[in-house]
């Protein structure tokens, strides 16, 4: 490759501020006269609010108090549907639902005041599981508890059962997962005398918050300004919830006329904000005796919690990823997202795909076992390849070679020799068993189907008076490397040094709407727009005669300064256009579900201690094809971080529910991996540049969340000879599974 900056390990743009402790996160910021806000939340799962009492011992006249009646516009957090209230008015539908807001100058008085507010309820029947929700005896949402359902069908599934050699069935479940970003949710709002509302926050999507607050406040779009400040991790957990906490701070600021800060403590953040959707997925597969997949019937059920929030789109991604990276001549996927009286589940890295890929990748191992074939062999015989079509009928047009990718991963992990050796050693009497397992998977980059077309993203690149280039996007940095990658792309496209490019402020009053920072779309989709806007800016400078081809960075700066001095400014924009040949039918769910897919093969090696039921991961190979790697250090960091979260989801992280409330909402008893729990994660990239992504990039951020759980459980099942089909798999879960005989997945030989 001839690029000078793209593909290199450019140092993180905002890295110096972060290592010096100078980066300003929301709780590091104070405004003059600022009050602190807090939230009174529902203590029950479902019921009618009968009254609110303000208990003794608190100087209530010093407090700013906001209820639903103070909302100037619509009492709604605007996402897809219109069902999520900003503050409960008559009914509560989940524990921790916000009811009332308080603000006071003394931060330490707030917990006492919150505790002194007594809400009386008339309790109503509540439901907490997928099974209770689908039984429909208690309806808590709409007419049937169903937020959304999809039916995806390819050819004739029903005809395949009659001719199948073998039918394999299985049921797979996954638990909720807490994002556990190290920085909790927080926002500051200020409302000026002129009626200008500004909200600063730890957030992913400034224009989501903007849209929601315009509706809530009834203010015009120009009167609402959202600014993202340094954000200490998000992983999807700051996609929807900032619209809630931002709204709360805004309501208190508008009522008091003073700036108001709300920053959750860890317990509140864990109990009240969104998590990954729990899932139950059933597979029924027709397969030939030599391991060719004939037909699949897949039923997906997600627990969406009490309000629909982002569940319809999470379910969409689950549905499309349900078949994995395999060719299915016939497939039917029936999916539904259901209401329960838990806090709403929301976006979390992977967005529905990890649940589906866990199920299909465990199921592939069951199929292999049923047929007496090695797991890798069943996969090899069914991989998607150029010319074949996915479940939605999308033809593979890139030079995809999954077999080669898998062989590389298996070679790096010494899979064949180890599998043979472990089989031999495990047959002995020892209580420590070794296993090795793999998962092969895909992840669609960018919004699903016509999503990118609806987003219609716009980016700009302009020049500063000092002759530097500035990237103007609403795409935000929260650790994944947005600032660095986009500056690398702009610098490459402009033909100048990386140091001469800076990011504009993530402020809705300054930057155009380049869409939300989600769905593995920033490098590929937004990056491509930055590349083209920067190119446009360069062409204008060249055409002005101030700059000649073959210029140095210093000549660029000189020309840029002169241009800005003469003309006042120079700004080039670029708007999204769908790559040719991308067609999608929202009604039938047929067509090009994603403009591109990243592909991967992960291999986990484990030791299972049968005495303690503890699992140690000894080695982890993460092999992926995610298009061109724009920055090897950042890309590797994304994969390693995603793998660690996947390890957590598989083996450590269990949300314990007590009538819809998270019972273990502390870091003390919700366990994420530490430095001593993570194996060597060995990351490899095969690069197949994607023509419509920035310098060949595809999406990368979510991919590594998909593979670890099935690879690890496949390895644990290999080690123990027992089938484990649910995550998380904590030692107590393994103990119960070993102690209590449960039915093995059904295999029907015909």
């Amino acid at each position: 490759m001839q690029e000078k900056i793209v593909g290199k390990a450019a140092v993180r743009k905002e890295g110096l501020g972060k290592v010096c402790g100078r980066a300003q996160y929301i709780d590091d910021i104070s405004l003059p006269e600022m009050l602190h806000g807090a939230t009174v939340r529902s203590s029950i799962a479902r019921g009618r609010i009968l009254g609110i009492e303000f208990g003794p011992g608190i100087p209530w006249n010093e407090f700013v108090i906001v209820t639903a009646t103070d909302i100037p516009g619509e009492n709604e957090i605007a996402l897809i549907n219109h069902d999520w209230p900003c503050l409960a008015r008559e009914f509560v539908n989940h524990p921790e639902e916000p009811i009332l807001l308080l603000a006071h100058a003394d931060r330490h008085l707030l917990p006492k005041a919150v505790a002194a507010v007594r809400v009386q309820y008339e309790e109503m029947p509540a439901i907490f599981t997928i099974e209770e929700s689908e039984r429909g005896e208690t309806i808590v949402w709409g007419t049937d508890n169903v937020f959304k359902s999809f039916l995806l069908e390819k050819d004739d599934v029903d005809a395949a059962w009659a001719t199948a050699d073998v039918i394999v069935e299985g049921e797979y479940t996954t638990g909720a997962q807490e994002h556990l970003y190290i920085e909790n949710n927080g926002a500051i709002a200020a409302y000026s005398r002129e009626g200008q509302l500004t909200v600063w926050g730890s957030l992913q999507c400034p224009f989501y918050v903007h849209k929601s607050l315009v509706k809530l406040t009834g203010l015009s779009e120009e009167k609402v300004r959202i600014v993202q400040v340094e954000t200490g991790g998000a992983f999807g957990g700051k996609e929807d919830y900032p619209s809630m906490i931002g709204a709360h701070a805004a309501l208190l600021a508008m009522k008091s006329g003073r700036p108001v800060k709300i920053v959750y403590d860890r317990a509140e953040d864990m109990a009240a904000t969104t998590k990954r959707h729990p899932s139950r997925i059933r597979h029924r597969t027709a397969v030939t005796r030599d391991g060719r997949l004939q037909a699949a019937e897949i039923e997906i059920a997600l627990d969406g919690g009490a309000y629909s929030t982002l569940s319809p789109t999470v379910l969409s991604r689950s549905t499309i990823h349900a078949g994995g990276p395999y060719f299915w001549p016939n497939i039917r996927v029936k999916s539904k997202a259901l209401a329960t009286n838990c806090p709403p589940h929301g976006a979390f890295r992977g967005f529905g795909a990890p649940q589906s890929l866990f199920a299909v990748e465990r199921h592939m191992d069951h199929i292999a076992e049923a047929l007496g074939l090695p797991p890798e062999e069943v996969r090899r015989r069914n991989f998607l390849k150029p010319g074949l079509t996915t479940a939605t009928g999308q033809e593979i047009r890139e030079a995809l070679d999954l077999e080669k990718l898998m062989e590389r991963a298996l070679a790096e992990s010494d899979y064949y020799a180890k599998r043979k050796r472990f089989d031999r050693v495990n047959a002995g009497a020892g209580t420590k068993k070794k296993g090795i397992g793999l998962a092969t998977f895909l992840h669609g980059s960018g919004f699903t189907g016509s999503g990118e077309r609806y987003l219609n993203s716009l980016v700009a690149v302009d020049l500063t008076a000092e002759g530097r280039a500035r990237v103007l996007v609403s795409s935000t940095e929260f650790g994944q490397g947005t600032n660095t990658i986009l500056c690398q792309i702009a610098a490459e496209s402009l033909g100048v040094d990386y140091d001469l490019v800076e990011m504009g402020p993530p402020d809705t009053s300054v930057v155009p709407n380049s869409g939300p920072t989600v769905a593995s779309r920033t490098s590929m989709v937004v990056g491509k727009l930055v590349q083209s806007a920067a190119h446009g800016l360069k062409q204008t400078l060249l055409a002005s005669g101030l700059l000649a081809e073959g210029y140095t960075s210093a000549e660029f700066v000189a020309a840029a300064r002169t241009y800005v001095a003469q003309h006042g400014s120079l700004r080039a924009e670029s708007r999204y256009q769908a790559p040719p040949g991308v067609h999608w039918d929202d009604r039938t769910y047929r067509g090009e579900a994603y403009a591109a897919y990243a592909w991967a093969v992960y291999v986990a090696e484990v030791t299972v201690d049968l005495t303690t039921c503890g699992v140690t991961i000894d080695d982890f190979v993460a092999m992926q094809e995610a298009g061109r790697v724009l920055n090897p250090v950042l890309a590797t960091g994304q994969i390693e971080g995603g793998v660690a979260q996947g390890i957590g989801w598989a083996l450590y992280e269990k949300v314990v529910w007590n009538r819809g409330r998270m019972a273990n909402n502390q870091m003390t008893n919700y366990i994420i991996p530490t430095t001593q729990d993570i194996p060597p994660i060995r990351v490899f990239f095969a690069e197949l540049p994607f023509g419509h992504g920035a310098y060949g990039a595809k999406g990368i951020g979510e991919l590594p969340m998909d593979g670890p759980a099935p690879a690890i459980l496949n390895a644990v099942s290999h080690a123990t000879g027992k089938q484990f089909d649910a995550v998380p798999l904590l030692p107590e879960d393994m103990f119960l599974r070993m102690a209590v005989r449960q039915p093995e997945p059904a295999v029907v030989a015909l």
Partner: protein
Amino acid sequence: MARLLDVLRRDLQLTGTKEGCGEGECGACSVLLNGDLVNSCLIPVAQADGAEIETVEGLGCDDRLHAIQRAFLSCGGGQCGMCTPGMLVASAHLLRKNPRPDLEAIREGLNGNLCRCTGYMRILEAVERAVTIAGEERS
């Protein structure tokens, strides 16, 4: 009584030290108290009376970076940056006690500092790099 963390962040405006959990689990608030690594969210400020406190701001800044800060930058040890100050302080503490830690010693030395972004690999590599940088500077 105020926690050492609050005195640092609010009274002294040294906001480099972060609060992650408030119960001594995550290590985002790690500082050195008379050379010992502590979670400042668990220290009543009276306990710090007369003590020497070292925070991330004391490690170095801009053109006077500590070797561990330089290594974090080049290895990608920090992503969102929220665990980074505590992680840097814990790493510096480890390197003072043990200037040439092996990988197991690094894993053990940082096991009280949680990171949700990196999966720790880049952090472990950064500590190893800092050992090399420090070695080069000595010679």
